[in-house]
């Protein structure tokens, strides 16, 4: 599971959860890939991303220092080097084994072999 996926996940679909976002992320194992960087694609992707949750994901792999702690005003004004750091967090880090945790109910959604399982029936067992 690439880290950008975490940004789109929430546990709002569970009973009695009001926000359910961002999910807490525990990473037991991850791989670093070398996906080709494309400036425009990275900017478009960043425009879809919620910044606070991105910081949570980056911190989960101890790489929050790669990106600013405050959201940049305009992504298209960043240098290639800065955008490459974002690209690395979003696309290169692949979580193999870990857990996504609902911030309210602490329901655990496991990530195994790189595949997160968001099935409610499994989580509530």
């Amino acid at each position, binding site marked *: *599971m*690439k880290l*950008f*996926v975490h*940004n*789109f*996940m*929430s*546990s*709002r*679909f569970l009973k009695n959860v009001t926000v359910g*976002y961002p999910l807490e992320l525990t990473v037991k194992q991850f791989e670093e890939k070398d*996906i080709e960087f*494309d400036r425009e*694609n990275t900017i*478009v*992707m960043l425009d*879809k991303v*919620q910044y606070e949750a991105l910081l949570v994901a980056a911190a989960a792999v101890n790489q929050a220092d790669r990106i600013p702690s405050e959201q940049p005003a305009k992504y298209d004004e960043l240098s290639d080097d800065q955008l490459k750091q974002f690209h690395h967090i979003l*696309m290169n880090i692949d979580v193999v084994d870990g857990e996504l945790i609902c911030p309210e109910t602490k329901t655990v*959604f496991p990530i195994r*072999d*790189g*595949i*997160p*399982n*968001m*099935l*409610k029936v499994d989580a509530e067992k």
Partner: protein
Amino acid sequence: MSLPTPQYRLQAIRAHDVYEPAEDTFLLIDAIEKDIKEIRSREPQLVLEIGCGSGVVSTFVNQALGGNVTSMATDLNPHALDVTLETAKLNDIKIDVVRTDLFAGLENLVGKVDVLLFNPPYVPTEEEPSTNIELTYAGGRTGRSTLDRLLPRVPELLSPRGVFYLVALHSNDIPSLLKEHSDRMTASVSMERRCGIEHLYILKFVMKEKKLNNDCITAPLACPE
């Protein structure tokens, strides 16, 4: 120019009750190939397939869009996700998969999906499905039990430049499907084909451009944000 059909391993698909690429799969691929220039002109970034099965369609779309897009796919069946990752790898592309029902747990994709793909279980059946393989085709009495759970949420899921491709059967009531969300999306029959007893359709839904409301046009200064 014809785009190649992705490679896939039938053995793995058959061993794990994953829906095998069939006429409906290939009709969806043909429809996307026919529209590929128009889809590219939308400059899509995020592609989501719900119920990816073998992953052949997601792989095709990723390749057809030049590999510059980010592809996500969901399925209930864990074997389908394994096979999708394998199909992606076989074709040297990347797909991120999530095991879930429709897009449960991915609600933050709302308004962000540029290309949405759905080949639902569409076959009218007496009973609701229970096994993995039944889940790949059985659509309940109208054949629309799964589709009718997703359809109401499609307009919110798509980005303003979003497009949605849907596989349907004649017996799913095509005219009513085309009328669904006619206020927010433009619907059309992209392709249709008779395959044995099945009369298959690929329906295409495109987000309408947001229009100014009438008050704004007559009294622009009084228009609230």
